[in-house]
C-alpha cells in the first residue's frame, strides 16, 4: 500500500466535523422521537381501530418498509417543489426520516401491544380503567419494558444509517460534512477514517445512555454491544 495518510488537514477541520456529529445526533433524536409518537398512535389504531383505519395503517407500514428510505426522502426533496411546496434540505430529511421511523416503530410497538397479558388488561378493566387509561397505565409500561431492547437498537439504526442519507441532499450532518471537506483537498480516506471513529463514539455514548436509562426506568438488563 503506497497511500500516505496525512491527518493534519483533518485535525484543522475537526471542529466542523464535530458540528456535523452534533447535527447527526440531533436529527437522530428528533426523527426517532417523532417516529415513536407516530408509532404509538398507529399501533393503537391498528390494535383498537375499525377495519378501514387498520387497513390504512397497514398500507402506510407496507409502503414505507418495502421501499428504501433514500427514495422516500427523494420524493420529498424532488417531489414537493413540483407541487409548490418549498422545504429546507434539513426539513425534507427530518420529515422523511420521521415518517420512515414511524412505520418501523409501528411494527415494533404493535408487537409490544400483542405481548401485553390479557389478564393484566382485565385486572385494569375491573378496576375501572377506560381504554385510554389501560393504554397509559398498563400497556405503555409493559411495552416500554418488553420492547426496550428493540427500541434501543432501532434508535442506533436511525442515528447511523438514517441520518447519513442527509449527505445526498446537501445536509451537513457528519457524513455530509466529511464529503464537503474532502472534496476540497481530496483526503477522502483520512476524513472517513476519522468520521467512522466519530460514529463509533456517538453510538457508544448513545448505547451507554440507553442501557442506563433501561436499567433505571424499566429494570431491563440491556447489554452494551
Amino acid at each position, binding site marked *: 500500500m503506497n497511500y500516505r495518510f496525512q491527518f493534519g488537514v483533518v485535525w484543522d477541520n475537526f471542529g466542523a466535523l464535530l458540528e456535523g456529529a452534533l447535527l447527526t445526533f440531533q436529527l437522530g433524536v428528533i426523527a426517532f422521537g417523532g417516529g415513536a409518537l407516530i408509532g404509538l398512535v398507529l399501533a393503537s389504531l391498528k390494535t383498537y381501530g375499525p377495519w378501514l383505519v387498520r387497513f390504512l395503517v397497514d398500507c402506510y407500514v407496507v409502503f414505507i418498509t418495502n421501499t428504501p428510505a433514500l427514495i422516500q426522502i427523494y420524493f420529498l426533496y424532488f417531489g414537493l417543489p413540483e407541487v409548490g411546496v418549498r422545504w429546507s434540505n434539513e426539513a425534507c430529511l427530518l420529515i422523511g426520516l420521521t415518517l420512515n421511523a414511524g412505520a418501523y416503530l409501528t411494527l415494533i410497538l404493535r408487537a409490544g401491544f400483542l405481548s401485553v*397479558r390479557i*389478564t*393484566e388488561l*382485565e*385486572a*385494569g*378493566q*375491573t*378496576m*375501572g*380503567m*377506560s*381504554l385510554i*387509561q389501560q393504554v397509559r*397505565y*398498563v400497556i405503555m*409500561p*409493559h411495552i*416500554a*419494558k418488553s420492547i426496550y431492547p428493540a427500541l434501543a437498537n432501532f434508535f442506533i439504526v436511525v442515528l447511523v444509517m438514517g441520518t447519513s442519507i442527509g449527505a445526498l441532499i446537501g445536509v451537513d450532518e457528519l457524513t455530509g460534512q466529511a464529503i464537503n471537506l474532502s472534496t476540497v483537498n481530496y483526503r477522502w480516506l483520512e476524513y472517513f477514517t476519522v468520521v467512522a471513529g466519530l460514529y463509533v463514539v456517538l453510538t457508544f455514548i448513545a448505547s451507554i445512555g440507553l442501557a442506563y436509562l433501561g436499567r433505571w426506568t*424499566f*429494570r431491563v438488563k440491556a447489554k452494551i454491544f
Partner: protein
Amino acid sequence: MPHLAVRDVRAKYGTLEVLHGISLSIEAGEIAALVGPSGSGKSTVLRALMGLTPITGGDVMIAGERMDYSSARAVRTARDRMAIVFQQYNLFQNMTVMRNVTLAPTKIKGWSKAEVGAEAMRLLALVGLSEKADAYPDQLSGGQQQRVALARALALKPQILLLDEVTSALDPELVNEVLDAVRKLAAEGMTMVIVSHEMGFVREVANKVVFMDGGEVIESGSPEDLFNAPKTNRARNFFSKIIRH
C-alpha cells in the same frame, strides 16, 4: 333487602351460552361460596358480575340498585361497587407492590395520594406484607402475590369482594397464609362471593353454599345442609367425591 341479588343471569362467550339463568342472594356481611365441578361456570359468574363476560339476560342488584352492563361506561358502576381477585393474581408485573395497590385509587378514582398511601400500608400490614412494598411481583412467592392482589382489590374500597379460587394456584404450605387474610376480612364484615375448592374453609366461613353444575345452580343453602344432607343427586355425588380427600 339483600346486599347482592343476582336474578336469572345468563352469560355468553361469543355465541356459547355458559350461564343458563343463575340466581343467588346474600345479605350484607355474608359470604357466599360457589362450588361445583370444573367447567360448571363458577368463574364466569364472577366475570359476568365484573362485566368481563357479557350478560345476556337477568338482573344484578346491589343494595337495591340495578347494575347496568350495557356499555363500557355504564359497567363502571358495577366495577365501582365490586372488586375481584383472580386465581392467577393478575398483578401488574412492571410495577412495585405499592404501585399495584395505589395505582387505581389515585389515578382512576382520583383519591388523595397521601390517604391512599396510608391505606395501602394498612392493607399490606393486614395481609402481612409491609416489608414487601417496594418489591416487584416476580420477586414474590405465589402466596405473597395473591395477598398483594387481595390488598389491591381492597384499596378500591369495594362493597362486595369476589374471590376466584384464590388458593388453587398455590403450594399447599402457602394456602393458609392467604386463607388467614380472607378470614380477617370475614371478621371485618366484608360481603364476599368466593369460589373455592377448600371445602373445610368454605364450611368455616361461608354463610351460604351455592352448588353449580352445567351453568346452573343445582342447589343452595347453608353449609351444613349442603355438606351433610344434599337434596339432589348431583350435589350428593359431588360432595361425596370432594370431601373424601
